[in-house]
Structure formats: structure tokens, C-alpha cells
């Protein structure tokens, strides 16, 4: 069924060599590689249909508009919502969350209001709220994580209350490999007349997602992490909520009537799409979603669950290696550290063997502080990764450890 060898053939970059080694790309949580189908959709768009959309009555403009709106419908379908009116194209998750923090936050947050997020948020779902809080006088509250990296839901129940206006949470963690109970958080939010925002940057690429089933009010994700081009992402929001919000960016397309002294706004989703949009990238993301649906998101999830567990097991066997996050119900991410080898040095040594992993704070500095580290190493898997690649990872880690051990037993 799920034929990983066939899938690998769709990804030209997997033929790259790093020095004399085959590329082993395990940095998918940072960004994914692109299948031929997506690259060709971009080329086809530029070579045959490129035009500015919505305002032209010539053939190319019609074709480009149709392609762009078809991509919107595909993505709405992928996220399991009929609301194309609620589906706004952005540059990525970060812009999507900022859009909410500006257009909803600046309008509705007041002194004394609270925004509840978690200790494990990516900076993308923390810094925009810090800025919004500063501008409005609202306060941020943080749901802590338990020792195994899962959310402290008892504390969540205490924190979400009458003052809460919005709850924001990563659906899946880019460090801990957790999948958070955002459905339950959405219930808690709604019981308190607050809104629920889900940062789906690490879920939409990897799990079947239904924004309806999650019960959230906003959902954000990034195209580049789900086989799509860079420079595109989406914000989905309940249309009736988007309707009440102020506009965010001003400019062409998002307007209805413009006078020198005032303007009125276009219908959803156009009200939030100012200026010439990332048309080719939206079309490319449509092709990525087609590709993912052809694999089946259930199969993608199963493949990665298996890889994640296999990696967890293989890496646990390495002496002194610390693994972060829970033992079970993991996504295809493993974050880890070695006492004697700094993550930077580790990834450099791995790179020498063609293995690309990430090291650093993964844009989660508060979480790093909570874990008591400055940085971790992280390997993250996607549709084209294999158990052999994980074996290569494990033995390269062992070699790196031996290499550093060879110089001395003394710790820095």
C-alpha cells in the first residue's frame, strides 16, 4: 500500500549527495522537501497561466483566478471544512497567528483580559500575544507541561476562566512530539466564552485534521512544512468571527469602496488578503495537498507513528542519551541530547555523514528553559523517511559520542 520507495522517487532532492554520502534528510519539522508534483505545478503556473487574479477579464487572469480559488477549496477540504470564506492565505503559520493577534486581539482584548497559552508554544504563538498584550493591557497565562511533556490539564482547567478571552495551543509540539488535547481546550475555552486558536504547523502536515472536529475557532498552518512551497500558509477562522474582526493589512483586493477619507471592506476571505497574493504558492500548496491526499493522511500518520516509535526505541539504546517528550502517542519527531556532545557539534558531525538534523532551541526558548537545557538535537521524519535512515542516525550518534569521548573524559 504505502510504498516508501516509490514515494522517494517523487522527491528530486533525495538524490542529492552530501560529499560522498547520500542525503538523509531528518529536518522535516523545520521544513519539508517538495515532490516533483509540486515543483511542476509551480512551473506549469508560471509557464502557462501566470496573471494577476480577480480583477482581470482576460484568459490568463481567469485561469490564474480559477487555479487560486481551486487551491483554496482543496485546502478547505483537506482541513475538513466547507468554509472557503473562512480560509485566508497567508505567508505561513506565523503571519496567520499575527493576523489574529492584530485583527482580533487589538480590537477585542482589554485590560484585565487573559490569553491562555502553554509553556511549550513555538515563539510564533507566544511573541504575537506578548505584543498584543502590551498594546491592550491584557495578560498572558501559561499552561505548564508535566514531566513527560504532556500538558497539565488540571492546571488548564484552573487557568481557563471568566477572564479568559482566547486559548492558544500547538496541536502537535515541534520538540516534544506530543499531540495536545486541543479539543478539550476548545471546550474549556467555549465554556468560558473564549475563543480557541490551534497552531497546526506540526499537525496539518502529519495527521488527519478536521477543524470542525477540533471545535476550534482559528487554525493556522504552513505550506512549506507539508510538501508545499515556501511563502504560503493559511489561517482558517470561523467566518462569523472573521467577519467581526478589523482588517489587518490594508491595500488592494481587501477593499470594497475606497474614498480618500474612509474605506469599506470586501467579503471574506478577501477582506484579509491585501495586495497581490502568493498566487503561485497557493497553487503549489493545492498540489501538495493533492499529493498528501493521494497518500492518505491516515497512512501518513501511521508511517510516521511507526518511524517515531522506532527512532525512540533505537535512540533509547544509546548510553547517556536523554530523550524528551512522552513515551507513547508520539509524532515523528525525536528530540534528544548527549551530556558530552553539544547539539551543534552533534549535527555538524552527523552532517558529515549526510544526515541532516536540527539543533538549537527550535524557536521554543521558554520550553528549553523548562527542560533545563539551552538546546537539543532533533530528528524529524516525514513521508519519505525509512527505518534504515534511522539506523544510520543511531550509529552516527554513537560515532559522534565516541569521537568526542576520545579527546577526554572531562566534561566542559
Amino acid at each position, binding site marked *: 500500500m504505502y510504498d516508501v520507495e516509490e514515494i522517494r522517487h517523487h522527491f528530486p532532492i533525495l538524490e542529492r549527495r552530501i560529499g560522498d554520502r547520500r542525503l538523509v534528510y531528518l529536518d522535516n519539522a523545520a521544513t519539508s522537501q517538495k515532490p516533483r508534483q509540486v515543483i511542476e505545478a509551480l512551473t506549469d503556473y508560471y509557464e502557462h497561466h501566470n496573471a494577476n487574479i480577480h480583477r482581470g477579464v482576460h484568459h490568463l487572469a481567469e485561469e490564474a483566478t480559477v487555479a487560486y480559488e481551486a487551491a483554496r477549496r482543496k485546502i478547505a477540504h483537506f482541513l475538513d471544512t466547507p468554509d472557503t470564506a473562512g480560509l485566508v492565505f497567508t505567508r505561513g503559520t506565523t503571519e496567520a497567528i499575527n493576523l489574529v493577534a492584530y485583527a482580533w486581539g487589538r480590537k477585542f482584548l482589554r485590560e484585565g483580559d487573559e490569553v491562555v497559552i502553554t509553556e511549550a508554544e513555538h515563539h510564533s504563538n507566544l511573541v504575537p500575544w506578548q505584543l498584543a498584550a502590551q498594546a491592550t493591557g491584557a495578560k498572558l497565562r501559561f499552561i505548564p507541561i508535566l514531566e513527560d511533556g504532556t500538558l497539565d490539564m488540571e492546571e488548564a482547567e484552573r487557568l481557563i476562566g471568566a477572564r479568559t478571552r482566547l486559548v492558544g495551543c500547538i496541536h502537535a509540539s515541534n520538540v516534544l512530539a506530543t499531540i495536545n488535547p486541543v479539543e478539550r481546550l476548545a471546550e474549556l475555552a467555549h465554556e468560558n466564552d473564549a475563543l480557541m486558536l490551534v497552531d497546526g504547523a506540526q499537525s496539518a502536515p502529519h495527521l488527519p485534521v478536521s477543524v470542525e472536529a477540533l471545535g476550534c475557532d482559528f487554525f493556522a498552518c504552513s505550506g512549506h512544512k507539508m510538501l508545499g512551497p515556501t511563502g504560503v500558509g493559511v489561517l482558517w477562522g470561523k467566518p462569523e468571527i472573521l467577519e467581526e474582526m478589523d482588517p489587518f493589512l490594508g491595500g488592494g483586493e481587501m477593499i470594497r469602496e475606497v474614498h480618500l477619507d474612509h474605506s469599506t471592506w470586501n467579503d471574506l476571505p478577501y477582506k484579509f488578503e491585501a495586495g497581490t497574493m502568493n498566487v503561485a504558492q497557493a497553487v503549489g500548496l493545492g498540489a501538495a495537498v493533492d499529493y498528501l491526499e493521494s497518500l492518505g493522511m491516515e497512512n501518513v500518520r501511521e508511517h510516521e507513528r511507526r518511524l517515531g516509535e522506532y527512532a525512540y526505541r533505537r535512540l533509547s539504546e544509546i548510553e547517556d542519551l536523554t530523550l524528551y517528550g512522552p513515551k507513547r502517542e508520539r509524532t515523528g519527531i525525536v528530540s534528544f541530547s548527549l551530556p558530552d556532545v*553539544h547539539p*551543534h557539534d552533534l549535527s555538524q558531525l552527523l552532517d*558529515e555523514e549526510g544526515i541532516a538534523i536540527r*539543533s538549537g*532551541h527550535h524557536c521554543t526558548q521558554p520550553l528549553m528553559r523548562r527542560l533545563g537545557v*539551552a538546546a537539543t538535537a532533533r530528528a524529524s521524519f516525514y513521508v519519505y523517511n525509512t527505518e534504515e535512515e534511522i539506523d544510520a542516525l543511531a550509529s552516527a550518534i554513537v560515532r559522534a559520542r565516541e569521537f568526542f569521548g576520545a*579527546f*577526554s573524559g572531562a566534561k*566542559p
Partner: protein
Amino acid sequence: MMRELYTQVIMDHYQRPRNRGTLEGADLEEHLLNPLCGDEVTVYAHLRDGKVADVKFDGRGCSISQASASMMTERLMGRSREEAEKEIRTFKAMMIGEKEFPAMDDLAALKGVIQYPSRIKCATLAWTAFQNGLDNAEN
């Protein structure tokens, strides 16, 4: 090829850092974080008679950032402020390929870093911190 980056000299400075620690009542104390990776360093110095009378560093980070900090302390110890600033400028010029590395010095071990642009910031972290510290100590 890449393992050449991790020379005996670098590993020695990393694992047996010179002048690691803090200085009480330092005239110069400057903390700097590499936002790209979370590495951090704090440099301390006593400045006396226009000279760097004592210098220490503290922090956590990769072998390159810590070894470079260690080498820096050796390099700046006892220098006049002007000499220290010149050392820092020269080092930064070396790290972007504008100056040659000194042949007979531990610093030469950092030459390999040039090939890895993302690591250059690791190598210069302590040096930038020290320059910031000198700037602030001026007022």
C-alpha cells in the same frame, strides 16, 4: 574532511577551557546570546591603567563557541584597550576571510569554521560580547 574542524587544539580548549569563571566586581561584564541556537557567553574583565588586567568567561555552548572564548581570554589578557579592540577586529576579519589566520597560534585552529557560515557566529560570540563590554565600559 569535516572532522578536521574538530582539531586537537579546539577540543583541548573546549574540554579544558582557560580562564573559565566569573570575576567579582569586574569593570567589564557582558552577556551575549546567540539567538540562532541559544548558546550564551558572559565575559568579565578587570581594566586597570588602560589594560585588560584580568579576563574570564562563562557560559554554555558548542565546542566552537567555548573554545573560541577560551582562546580569546588568552589573547586579550594584559593587552591595552586599543590592542584588545584591534585583536577583536582582526579576529572578525579572519572569520569572514578578509585576513589570514596567524600560523603559529591556537587561533589558527578556528580556520576551518569559515566554511560553515552558521558556525561563524559561534566563533565570534565571545569576541562580540567583549567588544560590547568595552563600548559600555567607556561611559
